[in-house]
C-alpha cells in the first residue's frame, strides 16, 4: 500500500517520492545547499516523510550544529527542524547531538530536542532532560515579552515520562501543582508512566471536564499517550472533536492490545465499540 501519512502518530515507512517534488537524494543534497530556505525545507521533509536511511540521519545530525541560519532574535531555524526530524527517524545515533541541543540558547531548539529524545527512547538523555527542570516551579514562570517559560518544561516532563525516568520523579512531582494546567497535565502523564499510580490517570480524566476546550484537548492527548484504559467512557463523552477523541481512544486500544499480545480483551472490544460510535 502506498502510504503517505499526515497524522503525527504515524510510524509507517513511506514512499516519499509520490507526494512531493523532492526526492530522497535531492532532500539529502539540499541540506548542503547554499539557499537556507531549501536547507530548512529539506530538514522538515526528511522527517515528515520518515526517510529512515543512514545518509539522511547523518546530514541532519550535522545540521544540529548549523551556524549559518539565524533569525533576527538569534534563533536557529535549521537546528529546530533537524531536531524535530531526528525524533521521527528512530536512529539513536542522533542522541548525543540532541542532548547537546538541550543547552542551545534557542528555546525552540531545546524544546524540539527534548521532544525528540523522548521519542528515541534512549535513557542516556535522562540527566540532560532533568537539568531543564532543575529550578523547579520557582523558575517556571512567565518571561515578560516572551510567549514561553524559561525552559520547555512540558516537553522535558513528557520525555522523562516516556523514558520511564524513575530518578526524575521528585523533580516532576512539584509540577503537579504548577499554576499552568498544561504543566499539571504533563506532570500527571509522566508520573503515571513512572509510577503506574491511577491517581494521576484519574486526574487527567477530571481534566476532560475542564471548561476550556484547549485543555480538554490536551487531556485527551495525554490519556491517549498513557493508554489509560479506565478513561475510555470519559473520553467518548468529552466535549471535543470526534477526531481527537478517536486518536485518544486509539492510544488506549493499542496499549491494551500490546499488553494482551494481540488478542482482543473485553476492554479492547469496549474501546472499539466506542470508536465505532464516534466515526
Amino acid at each position, binding site marked *: 500500500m502506498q502510504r503517505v501519512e499526515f497524522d503525527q502518530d504515524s510510524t509507517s515507512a513511506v514512499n516519499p517520492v509520490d507526494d512531493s517534488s523532492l526526492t530522497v537524494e535531492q532532500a539529502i543534497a539540499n541540506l548542503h545547499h547554499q539557499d537556507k530556505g531549501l536547507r530548512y525545507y529539506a530538514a522538515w521533509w526528511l522527517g515528515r516523510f520518515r526517510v529512515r536511511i543512514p545518509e539522511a540521519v547523518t546530514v541532519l545530525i550535522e545540521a544540529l550544529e548549523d551556524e549559518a541560519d539565524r533569525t533576527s532574535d538569534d534563533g536557529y531555524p535549521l537546528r529546530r527542524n533537524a531536531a524535530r526530524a531526528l525524533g521521527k527517524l528512530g536512529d539513536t545515533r542522533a542522541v548525543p547531538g540532541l542532548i547537546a541541543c538541550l543547552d542551545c540558547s534557542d528555546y525552540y531548539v531545546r524544546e524540539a530536542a527534548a521532544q525528540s529524545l523522548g521519542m528515541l527512547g534512549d535513557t542516556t538523555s535522562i540527566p540532560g532532560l532533568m537539568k531543564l527542570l532543575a529550578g523547579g516551579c520557582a523558575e517556571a514562570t512567565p518571561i515578560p515579552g516572551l510567549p514561553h517559560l524559561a525552559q520547555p518544561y512540558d516537553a522535558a516532563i513528557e520525555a522523562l515520562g516516556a523514558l520511564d525516568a524513575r530518578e526524575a520523579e521528585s523533580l516532576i512531582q512539584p509540577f503537579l501543582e504548577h499554576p499552568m494546567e498544561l504543566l499539571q497535565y504533563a506532570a500527571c502523564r509522566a508520573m503515571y508512566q513512572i509510577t503506574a499510580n491511577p491517581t494521576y490517570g484519574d486526574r487527567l480524566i477530571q481534566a476532560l471536564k475542564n471548561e476550556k476546550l484547549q485543555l480538554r484537548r490536551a487531556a485527551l492527548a495525554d490519556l491517549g499517550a498513557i493508554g489509560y484504559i479506565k478513561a475510555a467512557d470519559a473520553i467518548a463523552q468529552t466535549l471535543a472533536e470526534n477526531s481527537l477523541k478517536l486518536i485518544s481512544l486509539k492510544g488506549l486500544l*493499542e496499549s491494551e492490545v500490546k499488553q494482551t499480545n494481540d488478542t482482543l480483551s473485553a476492554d479492547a472490544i469496549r474501546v*472499539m465499540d466506542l470508536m*465505532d460510535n464516534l466515526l
Partner: protein
Amino acid sequence: MIATTDLLAQKLIQAVEEADSSQRLLTAVQNLAQARLIAAIPTLIQVLGYNNPGAAVAAVDGLILIGEPVVSPLLEKLDDYNYGARAWAVRALAGIGDPRGLNTLLVAAKTDFAMSVRRGAAKGLGNLHWHQLPPEQVQTYQGEALEALIQVSQDHEWIVRYAAVVGLAALLNVTSTRPDWQARIIAQFEQMLTTDDNLAVCSRIRLAQQSN
C-alpha cells in the same frame, strides 16, 4: 395538541437563536434535539454550520432521532456547506441510514478532502437501511457500497481505513445471498492484516473476523 407542539417548538427554537454563550447554545440545542420535532429540522441543520462541536454533536443526534424527514432538506443544503458542516451532515445521513443518501456517501467516502467526512461516510455506507429499497435494487446499491469501501479501505489515513473496516464488516452481515462478495470482503481483511501496519485498524479487522 398540535398547537401545544407548535408552541413548544417555537420556544425551543427561540432559545437556540437567542443563545449568547457556547454553553447556552449547547443546552438549547440539546433541548431542541431531544424534543424530536419536525419543526426543529431547519434550525438543527443550521446549527451544523456554527463551528461549535458540542452543539453540532447534539444537532446530529437530534436529526438522527427525527430520521427520514430530515434526508431531503439535508441533501438540499449539502452544497452550501463548509467542510466542518459537511462532516456533520454526512454523519447525520450516515446515522439515519436512508438509502437516498447513498450517492452522497459514495462520493464523500472516496473523494472528500476532509478525513472526518470520508470516515463518517465509510461507516454509513455499510449501514444503510437496505430494507427500505425495492428488493430488485438492493444488490445494485450494496454492490456500489462494496466497491467504494474496498477502495476506501486503502485510504492513507488510519481512521478512514478503520471506518471502512466497520462498513465492510456490516456489509458482510447482510450479503449472505452473495457469497462471492463475502469472500471478497474476507480476502480484503486478510490482505489488510498483512499490509496495514496500524494496530488499531488490524484490531478492528480481528474483531470483525471474530464476530463473523
